[in-house]
């Protein structure tokens, strides 16, 4: 990037809340049901229906407010945002406008080098999602209203970010929070977490903001980074060429790796916001706030610190393990069954995460139970199998959460720790390889590895490597 310039980025994140029922009616929020099956007169916008607020929505938003150090307002007000669209049955969206429920918060992001930065949160408010329009054929649009009225929480940041990297770190943190709080699954690809960005460029040292553009439709972390980078370069090029930036909304196209302006017609909305007369203002009492606060789980930063102090894990491990709550939960579950904390951390960070990646599944769908992984780790710890053998056992366990002890028995992989048995094998090897024995005695230390290898091969890897080492050393050195 041209170093004359400074980038200013603010993000608006929409998080679909994981309540069982919709924001203003009793319909299920379950994803994947047949089109127009999660509906009732209220979310269908039939004449005469009225919204009734789902209290859980307020509670969930309060949790996010606590996590992001916001002020939870005692009184907040719903408003109507008026516009026509086929997937908006009422002709307006219920949202919060002048008086949102949370304001004036912040989160801290941490860079790779360990330095930190505080990013401001302007507000968090509640609104309802729209349905989905499916443009089926040339002359037909089909509407699925299932998503209509599903609660959304919109988190609006201050324009505090100065690079795409900061934006991604911010977004990562938001995702981490909503997952830790259990209020949103944080899936950007499926649209349960959506992000729009406001972005502008100015000369370094300038205090006034430049003209901003808004970018929408970035449905993955990678796309956010790419789209922002693209927009920064586009704006700088224009400024360098002396062209004025036009305030507009752009849509990111992940296939073409570029953004294009939204048709201005779609943008020219006057939403005619006014207070929703069908709902009373939301009053959050001190006792309700206290009640909600009790439901706050341990947040990632604290958990990471605890992993370092309580389990003596390196910061690197603690970072990776606490990145996602389900992974951290899994790790904590595993160490209920084993005290080998570092080994457990290695396995979760290594083989487990790698497998999840390969299978493209979530840890909650992972087949090996924490108990069985703990068992495997204990089997290494007590010398029943070597770490190397364990790597062979692991893939077999994937198949239907197989007990590692059974795998080991079936494949006859129990480590040979019987000294006399190993001694017998070693004696034969030494006898058969006189030349190498002599080389060792002449001081060729390298040959030692040759004997270890031979022994392991002879035992199909089952010999306890430590015992093999000890016996070999004492036998060979005894010949000196």
């Amino acid at each position, binding site marked *: 990037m041209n170093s004359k310039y400074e980038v200013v980025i603010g993000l608006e994140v929409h998080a679909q809340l994981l309540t069982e029922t919709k924001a203003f009616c009793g319909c299920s929020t379950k994803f994947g049901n047949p089109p127009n099956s999660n509906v009732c007169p209220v979310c269908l916008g039939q004449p*005469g*229906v*009225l919204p009734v607020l789902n209290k859980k929505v307020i509670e969930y938003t309060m949790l996010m407010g606590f996590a992001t150090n916001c002020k939870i307002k005692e009184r907040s007000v719903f408003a109507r945002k008026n516009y026509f669209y086929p997937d908006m*049955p*009422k002709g*307006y969206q219920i949202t919060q406008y002048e008086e949102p429920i949370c304001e004036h918060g912040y989160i801290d992001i941490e860079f790779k080098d360990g330095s930190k930065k505080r990013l401001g949160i302007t507000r968090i408010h509640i609104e309802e999602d729209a349905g989905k329009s499916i443009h089926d054929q040339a002359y037909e649009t089909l509407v699925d209203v299932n998503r209509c009225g599903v609660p959304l929480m919109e988190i609006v940041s201050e324009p505090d970010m100065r690079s795409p990297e900061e934006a991604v770190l911010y977004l990562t943190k938001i995702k981490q929070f909503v997952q830790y709080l259990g209020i949103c699954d944080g899936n950007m690809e499926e649209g349960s977490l959506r992000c729009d960005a406001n972005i502008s460029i100015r000369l370094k040292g300038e205090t006034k903001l430049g003209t901003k553009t808004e970018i929408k439709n970035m449905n993955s972390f990678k796309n956010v980074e790419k789209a922002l980078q693209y927009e920064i370069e586009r704006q700088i090029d224009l400024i360098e060429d002396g062209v004025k930036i036009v305030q507009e909304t752009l849509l990111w196209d992940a296939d073409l790796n570029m953004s294009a302006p939204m048709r201005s017609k779609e943008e020219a909305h006057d939403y005619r916001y006014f207070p929703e*007369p*069908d709902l009373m203002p939301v009053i959050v009492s001190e006792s309700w706030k206290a009640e909600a606060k009790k439901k706050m789980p341990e947040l990632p930063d604290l958990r990471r610190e605890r992993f370092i102090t309580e389990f003596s894990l390196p910061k690197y491990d603690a970072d990776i393990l606490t990145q996602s709550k389900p992974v951290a939960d899994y790790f904590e579950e595993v160490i209920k069954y084993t005290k080998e904390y570092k080994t457990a951390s290695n396995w979760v960070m290594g083989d487990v995460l790698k497998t999840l990646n390969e299978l493209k599944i979530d840890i909650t769908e992972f087949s090996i139970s924490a108990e069985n992984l703990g068992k495997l780790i204990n089997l290494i710890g007590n010398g029943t199998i070597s770490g190397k053998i364990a790597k062979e056992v692991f893939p077999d366990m994937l198949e239907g959460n197989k007990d590692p002890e059974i795998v080991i028995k079936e494949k006859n992989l129990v480590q040979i720790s019987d000294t006399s048995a190993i001694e017998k094998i070693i004696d034969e090897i030494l006898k058969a390889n006189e030349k190498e024995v002599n080389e060792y005695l002449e001081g060729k230390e390298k040959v030692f590895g040759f004997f270890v290898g031979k022994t392991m091969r002879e035992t199909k890897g089952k010999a306890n490597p430590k015992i093999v080492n000890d016996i070999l050393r004492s036998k060979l050195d005894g010949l000196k």
Partner: protein
Amino acid sequence: MVNYKNHSEKLQKLKSGELSLEDNVKFFLSEIDKNKKLNAFNFVFSDFALEQAKTVQGKIKNNTNGKLAGMVVAIKDVLSLKDKPTACSSKILKDYIAVYTSTAVQKLIDEDAIIIGKTNCDEFAMGSSNENSAFGAVLNPVDNQRVPGGSSGGSAVAVAAGLCDVSLGTDTGGSIRQPASFCGVYGLKPTYSRVSRYGLTAFASSFDSIGPFSHSVEDAAKVLEVISGKDEKDSTSLNVEVPNYSAELTNIDKKYKIGIPKEYFGEGLNEEIKKAIEDVVAKLKSSGFEIVDINLPHNEYTIATYYILTTAEASSNLARYDGARYGFRSNDAATLLDMYNNSRSEGFGKEVKRRIMLGTYVLSAGYYDAYYKKAQKARRLIKNDFDLAFKNVDLIIAPASPTLPFKIGEKSEDPLEMYLGDIYTTSANLAGIPGISVPVANSEEGLPIGMQILANQFDELKLLKTSYFIQNEILKNN
């Protein structure tokens, strides 16, 4: 003619066997048929009503009947009844069938009232003459050349012409009280939030209330008692205890202090109406009621405030009628925008379109503060006037309308003149207070004159007790 003066008498006769409910319903059905030209009904449920009559007759026989057993009720065509049309007197909903039942109507049914049909009204309850209806104008039964008032004109006429026992209307700015006064029946608008709005097709959400038309105060009290109360489906309904109105009605232990606001008796008020009300007030005074003059200083802002706020809410409430999911869709709908524009242009009537445009305008960027916000402030001032007044008095007496029922077509080309007719009724909706129109006299021409009584929020009992006193002690000699 029916031979009972209120529902209690009717129920007695039904119990004793002196009256057959089926015959009674058949009688109303034939009266509806005979009076077709009044155009009071949009839909008549003959079979449904007769079926209900049979069931309820059985319950009465077994002594398992509800409070309103056998009361034959007509409901305004903006209230939902499952599997029956809710057209709101609009072309845009002409073929719409409701998919659920409104809370107020369900409560009537649960107490064994019989729903006989849905009454004509101004389209989406917007109007003061019942001339804005896709089903045609409703005629005043007293003088067929004249309007019955609106918007609940059909409901008022259904009761006045003896086509049912009681009816439900809705009142957003006088739509129960004004037609009641034009047709010579009782019309009660409860406190806002007293009766659930669930299933009432919204015109202006923060103004709309549902209430009864009746021949007697007793019946109004009974119906109010049944339809009132907190409803989980309406967040704006309040959890305030519902008194046993019908039982307490007769017990006027103290004579109330009544305020007469001078702003309501000034220029523009028809002399005959003025005199009729003054007569009643004088009689109340001689009966022991204390009469005092009061001021409602912000009264002059009521019409402007009312029309800004209600049209704003209406413009949003009526957005759902877009041709996409239900109701009328224009044949000329090649694109999405065409579908919206043409369905709404062809489906809505003139007055509804006028109000949607007004409302859209006052909410628009750049005008919101000057209109909507300012009107919200004015609304608070107007409410404040009433709060202050009710610190000093129990009730306020005022006219329900500045004029007698006017001729059909007389004002329909002059919307402003029509709006000014709401001058004495909109304030109650702005303040959220209850009001009743009591039929107190007839003009020289024989046209009905209504007197409006207003009370503080949730003081319906005071309204009913006083109306009952007027009905039984003051008017019985007339």
